[in-house]
C-alpha cells in the first residue's frame, strides 16, 4: 500500500526524554478550557465544568487545569505538552462526555500527533543482538586455504554411491541392533 497520495507527515516513533525507562511522567503539562458564559455552543462545556471537571482534576493531579471564560467565542480545549507542543480542540456543541473523552485522550498523549503518520510500529536502538549477517558469517575457514580456480568446487556435489557401498551400509545398520530410524522433526 503506497503512501504517496497521503498529505500526512511521515515520522518514526519518538519519546520525549526517554519517558518509560525510569518512571512514567504524564506528558500533559496544562489544559486551558475556554468557553462563553452565555452562548449555546458552550453549553456542554459549561455543564462539564459544573459537574465532571472536579473529578477529572482529582484523578490527574499532574495536569494544571485553567478555566477561561471568553465572551462571544466558541469553546476550546487547549493542551500544552512538556515538549512544547500545543494542541487545540474546537469544543463547539460538544456534550460533557465528549469533552471528558477528549481530555482523557490529551492526557494520555505525549504530543500533537494529528497529521503525522507513523512509519514503523517499533523503535529499537539495537536491531541486532547476535550480530548482523556478514559474508563471513557462515563462510568455512577452509576456503581460505583453497587455491582458486578449483574445479571440485565449481559445480554441485553429486553423491553417487555404488551398489556395493549401499549394501555394505545396510549390513552395518542391521549389525548395530537397536537402531531407531526416524526422520528429523
Amino acid at each position, binding site marked *: 500500500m503506497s503512501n504517496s497520495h497521503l498529505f500526512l507527515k511521515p515520522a518514526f516513533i519518538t519519546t520525549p526524554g526517554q519517558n518509560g525507562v525510569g518512571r512514567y511522567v504524564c506528558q500533559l503539562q496544562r489544559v486551558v478550557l475556554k468557553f462563553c458564559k452565555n452562548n449555546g455552543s458552550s453549553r456542554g462545556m459549561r455543564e462539564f465544568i459544573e459537574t465532571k471537571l472536579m473529578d477529572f482534576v482529582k484523578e490527574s493531579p499532574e495536569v494544571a487545569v485553567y478555566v477561561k471564560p471568553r465572551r462571544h467565542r466558541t469553546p476550546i480545549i487547549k493542551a500544552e505538552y*512538556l515538549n512544547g507542543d500545543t494542541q487545540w480542540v474546537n469544543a463547539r456543541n460538544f456534550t460533557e462526555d465528549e469533552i471528558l473523552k477528549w481530555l482523557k485522550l490529551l492526557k494520555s498523549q505525549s504530543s500533537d500527533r494529528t497529521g503525522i503518520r507513523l512509519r514503523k510500529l517499533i523503535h529499537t536502538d539495537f536491531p541486532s543482538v547476535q550480530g548482523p549477517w556478514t559474508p563471513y558469517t557462515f563462510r568455512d575457514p577452509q576456503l581460505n586455504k583453497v587455491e582458486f580456480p578449483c574445479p571440485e568446487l565449481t559445480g554441485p556435489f553429486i553423491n553417487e554411491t555404488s551398489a556395493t557401498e549401499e549394501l555394505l551400509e545396510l549390513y552395518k545398520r542391521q549389525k548395530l541392533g537397536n537402531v531407531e530410524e526416524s526422520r528429523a522433526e
Partner: protein
Amino acid sequence: MFCRHILQATNRLIGQSSMNIQYIGCRNIKRWVAPTMKELSRRRKKVGPDPNKPRSSYLEWNYDVELHCFQNRIGETFDKNILSEALVQREYANIQEFKAKEEGNESYIPEQHNYDLAKDGNAIISDYIKEEYSKNYPEEIAITVQKYLTTDEMLAHIAKHLGFTDLIKAVEYPLEERTLADSFKALVAALSLSSDLERAQLFVKDFVIAQMNGKDIYDIWTPEKPYEYVVKLLEQRGIKKVEPRLCNQSAVNTILANYQVGLYDSNNKSLLGIGWGENVQIAKDTAALDAIQRLYNSYARK
C-alpha cells in the same frame, strides 16, 4: 444590490419619490473585507513575528498550582520553601533585592537563590553516576560517562522535558541552558533535603541515567590506542600472549577492501575479539575494541 439599482433607475424614470425603496441587504462578505485583511497582514509581516512571551505573563497562570502539578508529575514531595529556593536564579534574586533597595522598600525579604543548592546537586548527581558505572566498568569509562551526562546541554534537555522552563524565575527569556541545568541540580539537592539522599539518587537514576538508554557506551568512550590497551588489559587478566590473525579478506585490490582480523589467545587458541576494517591496521584496532567490549559486562555483538 442589483435590485436596488433597478429600483433607483425606475424611480428616476417615473420621477416619484413616494415609492418605497426596499433595501434588500445581503448577508455576504462585504467588498471591503478582503482588502482590509490583506493590508493588516501586510503590516503585521512588515513589523515581524510576535516575540515569544514567557508563559507566566499569560492571564491563565497560577504559580502555586503549577508547582503543585510539577511535584505530582515527578512523583516527589518537596518542602515548599526549599522548592521555591531551587527555582530562583541568582541574578534574578539580586536584581529583585536591588530594585527593592532603590524603591526604599524596607520590609522586603530577600529571596533565596539556588547557587548553593546547585553546587550540592551537582555533587550528588556526579557521585551517583560514577558509583553506578564503577560497578560494571573501570574508572575511566565511569568518569567519561559522568562528564557526558552532567553537561549543561544534557541537563537542560532533561529539565525542559520535566516542565522547568515555565517555573524558573530568571532574568533572561528564553532561558539559557546554564540556568536550566543549575535549576535541575538545585532540585536534586532540594529533594535530598526534603526527603533523603536515597530518593534523590533514585530520581537521578530515573531521569539522568535513563538518558543512556539506546546509547552505546563505546561511542562515548574509545581508548586512543586500542591494541596496546587491550594487551595491557589481558595481561592483567592472565592472558600473556595475544596473537592477531587475518581471518578473512575480500576485494583486496579495490577501494572497498575488507579485512577481518581476529585476536587469539596463544595458549588455548580461543577467540578474544574479531573486527573488520579497510586495511589491516584498522581491522586490528576494531578487533581490539571488540575484545575490550567482550571483557566488560554489556557485550553487544557488532
